[in-house]
């Protein structure tokens, strides 16, 4: 989330699309309700009427997988009715940038496309074709009037001129009058002082166009001036208590803690690595925050290897693994490789891929190829016990499995980071049950034994292992405070920074103090400032709000970066530093003014996104010592044109890999031309196939969580939602002769799952052109291990192994199925 949970109350219009907040983030509705009590409108767009819809002022349905069409229509509506925020769009977004001559778009393809016959990626783009035009100094050329035909603004207008109401309605199945009502209501937040927010989740990400779904909305938020303001932002409702923190600390193949890049093989030295990944801007008004990259990477290496990381050994850079340039090592690729027998050892630590991975049959089959597996969890699960799952023969499965019992969160101490980026400390209640142990102790202990094995017995390339800093223990037990301090970072020698002597061994106050010479460590620069000499910031409990009284609660817990509660908040003020919204302001410039010029620097409210002077003086003269507000972008502007994405600088509607229509109404490109599709025997797909006539989608319910492993063993929650089910319309039930409550089979090209039919008015068939398209939905909370009957299985047995080209996230929100009586 660019903003945070409490901030939702400041919104004037809340769009919930691609999420079901009332059910999956129930407490968010405290703030949705508060906003509505003050007059905010709630819009909900979802293929199915949910508990969120039940509270909405406006609810309308769309066919799964057509969000870009829906939102593309909104962009057209906003532009044609002149409802965008002119001042904001011209000042803070890249709408005025001039795009180079090489850019083009024709019949669903952007310039620079090459098809890839081998897969799994269907094709790729030469993104240099989408570059901006630069002036002689290497600064982007702009036309603030937005009139130049080559501006991003005009190109956007042209691109979305094709998204007319008739076509959008035909594709989405949403009635035209509903489209207009949603567009009109949301676009009203373009007015200065009004804020609209989007609450989205996996309903947007889990598509072959997942990243672009979100980009479409980000463009709308920029055009309407909704970024950086209270009650605005682009808000991903993250689904797991620490999925934000685990992402920040980068338990992911492509990034290192703090969103640094995993080195490529071609980055053959620390210097080459830093050079490659440190962006350069020639614009003195661009903060280009990532210019600090080498400070963060070197400090991280110091945290990895401590004293053994020295300038002479490039701080241990070459001890760490490199990935091949152009190769991808994502979730899909792990299991594809495992399926082919190329992975021997496997850790499934606090995760249940046998139910959570799309095309779960392939995932389960892959595990049979392993020599060994380590499964750490609080319950036995479908992953650890895969060898005795349905359809397996244990006597033929070689895999050794170690199942380690972990403590539950309340039995240990440490922090987690919520969706609003708040790091919050948890304390131990009871001791771990039985012989279970906190994950931290298991990790430490395992690390010790591996280190000892290499120290004693030697082994291949043992330096990184024996040199790994591994002192996060007190009295022989894992100490989360020591790890938290390492993440924050230390001064590793006496050093003078900003004219202040910083003593060796003291904690770094914030990332502005990090250095490139090894005099600082920091396990994650984004968390530098979280645990300082002043103490553990995440444990703070003050209920005092900030002076602007918009619910920032700056001394309750801690949030990254540097406790800034609303990011990009420099865009919440006009170029003179005055809030667009006078009432619910985030920051305001409070420096002294003399003769129409600002003469001293002071911001009040939230921690500003950089403390520079405003862009302009009160008399309108431009300042040279200011910075553009979008400081994490190379040029400092919000990106309406996104030339970094794999599938194009503007989002374009493509059909899901499996879809019910034979033609894409917007172009002759049926599916995202860069989508990722796997092709082993276990990766069957079927589109426009009469055997699978209905659109299927997966989702969650309030009473269960993820694969259900932390809810299915609980009688209280099983009482509420005891069975795997499929929801369908009354019309579809009639068509198939299905009665409410009876058991049915849901089948896709990959597998079949038995479900209880919920026949409901909350699903309605879609009118897609002249055809009627039915959609059904299944929750992905079940698995054969719990309940012990073994009859309730995972919806991911049905979902495909195809994904988004930017992230390789699977397309589990739109695929094709059949429903039949048992």
């Amino acid at each position: 989330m660019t903003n945070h949970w409490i901030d939702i109350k400041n919104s004037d219009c809340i769009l919930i699309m691609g999420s079901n907040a009332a059910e999956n983030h129930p407490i968010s509705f405290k703030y949705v309700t508060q906003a509505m009590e003050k007059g905010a409108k709630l819009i909900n767009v979802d293929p199915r009427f949910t508990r969120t819809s039940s509270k909405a002022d406006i609810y309308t349905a769309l066919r799964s997988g057509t969000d870009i069409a829906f939102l593309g229509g909104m962009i057209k509506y906003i532009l044609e009715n002149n409802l965008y925020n002119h001042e904001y769009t011209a000042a803070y977004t890249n709408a005025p940038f001039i795009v180079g001559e090489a850019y083009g778009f024709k019949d669903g393809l952007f310039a620079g496309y090459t098809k890839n016959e081998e897969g799994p990626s269907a094709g790729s783009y030469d993104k240099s074709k989408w570059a901006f035009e630069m002036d002689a100094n290497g600064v982007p050329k702009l036309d603030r009037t937005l009139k130049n035909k080559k501006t991003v603004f005009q190109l956007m207008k042209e691109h979305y001129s094709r998204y007319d109401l008739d076509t959008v309605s035909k594709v989405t199945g949403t009635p035209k009058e509903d489209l207009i009502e949603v567009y009109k209501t949301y676009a009203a937040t373009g007015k200065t002082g009004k804020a609209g927010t989007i609450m989205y989740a996996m309903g947007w990400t889990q598509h072959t166009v997942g990243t672009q779904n979100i980009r479409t909305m980000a463009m709308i938020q920029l055009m309407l001036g909704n970024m950086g303001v209270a009650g605005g932002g682009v808000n991903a409702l993250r689904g797991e208590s620490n999925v934000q923190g685990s992402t920040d600390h980068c338990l992911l193949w492509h990034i290192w803690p703090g969103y640094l890049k995993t080195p490529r093989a071609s980055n053959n030295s620390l210097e080459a690595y830093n050079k490659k990944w440190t962006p350069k801007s020639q614009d003195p008004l661009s903060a280009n925050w990532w210019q600090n990259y080498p400070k963060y990477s070197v400090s991280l290496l110091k945290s990895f290897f401590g004293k053994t990381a020295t300038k002479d050994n490039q701080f241990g850079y070459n001890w760490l693994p490199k990935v091949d340039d152009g190769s991808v090592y994502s979730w899909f690729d792990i299991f594809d490789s495992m399926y082919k027998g190329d992975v021997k050892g496997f850790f499934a630590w606090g995760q249940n891929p046998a139910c959570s991975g799309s095309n779960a049959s392939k995932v389960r089959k892959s595990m049979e190829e392993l020599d060994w597996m380590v499964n750490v969890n609080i319950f036995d699960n479908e992953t650890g016990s895969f060898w005795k799952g349905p359809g397996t023969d244990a006597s033929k499965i070689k895999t050794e499995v170690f199942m380690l019992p972990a403590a539950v969160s309340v039995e240990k101490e440490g922090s987690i980071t919520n969706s609003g980026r708040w790091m919050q400390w948890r304390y131990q209640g009871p001791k771990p049950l039985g012989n279970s142990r906190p994950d931290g102790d298991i990790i430490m202990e395992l690390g010790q034994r591996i280190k000892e094995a290499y120290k004693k017995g030697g082994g291949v390339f043992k330096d990184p292992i024996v040199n790994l800093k591994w002192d996060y223990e007190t009295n022989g037990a894992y100490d989360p405070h020591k790890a938290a301090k390492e993440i924050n970072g230390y001064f590793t020698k006496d050093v003078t920074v900003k004219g202040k002597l910083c003593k060796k061994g003291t904690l770094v106050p914030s990332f502005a103090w990090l250095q490139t010479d090894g005099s600082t460590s920091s396990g994650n620069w984004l968390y530098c400032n979280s645990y300082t000499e002043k103490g553990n910031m995440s444990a703070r409990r003050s209920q005092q709000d900030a002076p602007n009284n918009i619910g920032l609660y700056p001394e309750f817990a801690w949030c990254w970066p540097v406790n800034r509660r609303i990011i990009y908040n420099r865009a919440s003020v006009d170029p003179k530093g005055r809030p667009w919204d006078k009432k619910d302001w985030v920051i305001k410039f409070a420096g002294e003014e003399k003769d129409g010029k600002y003469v001293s620097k002071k911001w009040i409210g939230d921690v500003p996104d950089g403390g520079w002077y405003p862009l302009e003086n009160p008399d309108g003269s431009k300042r040279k010592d200011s910075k553009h507000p979008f400081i994490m972008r190379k040029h400092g502007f919000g990106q309406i044109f996104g030339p970094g994405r794999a599938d194009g600088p503007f989002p374009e509607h493509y059909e899901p890999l499996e879809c019910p229509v034979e033609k894409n109404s917007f172009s002759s490109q049926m599916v995202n031309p860069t989508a990722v599709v796997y092709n082993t025997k276990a990766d069957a797909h079927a589109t426009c196939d009469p055997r699978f006539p209905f659109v299927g989608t997966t989702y969650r319910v309030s009473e269960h969580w993820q694969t259900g492993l932390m809810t299915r063993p609980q009688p209280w929650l099983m009482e509420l939602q005891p069975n795997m089910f499929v929801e369908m319309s009354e019309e579809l039930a009639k068509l198939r002769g299905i009665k409410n409550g009876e058991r049915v089979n849901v089948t896709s090209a990959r597998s079949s799952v038995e479900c209880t039919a919920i026949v409901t008015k909350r699903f309605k068939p879609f009118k897609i052109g002249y055809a009627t398209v039915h959609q059904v939905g299944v929750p992905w909370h079940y698995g054969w291990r719990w309940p012990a009957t073994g009859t309730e299985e995972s919806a991911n047995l049905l979902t495909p192994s195809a994904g988004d080209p930017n992230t390789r996230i699977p397309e589990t929100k739109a695929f094709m199925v059949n429903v039949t009586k048992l």
Partner: protein
Amino acid sequence: MKLDRRDFIKISGATAAGIAVSGLGFDLKQVKSHAGMLKTRYAKESTTICCYCAVGCGAIVHTSKRGDGRVMNIEGDPDHVINQGSLCSKGSSIKQLVENENRLTEPMYRAPYSDKWQTVSWDWALNNIADRVKKTRDESFEKTNAKGQTVNRTTKIASVGSAALDNEECWIYQSLMRSLGLVYIEHQARI
């Protein structure tokens, strides 16, 4: 003295109970039995953050100070600025997650081709896992790739997880995995 909401509740609670005992009619006996002690009165109180979704709601954990030292009650923390005491059905059931007869309480091992689990000691499990890691890593370690570039990695070991770990655990876990040369490191954020 600045009172937080919970202090206030404690104080007003004491007052309410005081009133309840005085000035009552015939049903004094029953009222006393109800107005008496809360089951959580002698419990240790600790704060936590809910382990389910990422709203980050605060909860109070009441752990018995007597007997088994287990959880007696978990409810929303009224002093937490986000949820102010609220919890959904999942958050309200955390006690049953912790105090659950289905939990794993011993390390277990499944041998190749076996059809059952056997309980093992932590020592045995961790030593054997360390052995497997070392063996697979050493056999598969690539110092250079097909192009001859230094890569220092293994693609024969993969790790998934976890958004269920604390931040500090995530950090030490990724550092251990990366020091071993793993590049197949993924978790819930990808799916």
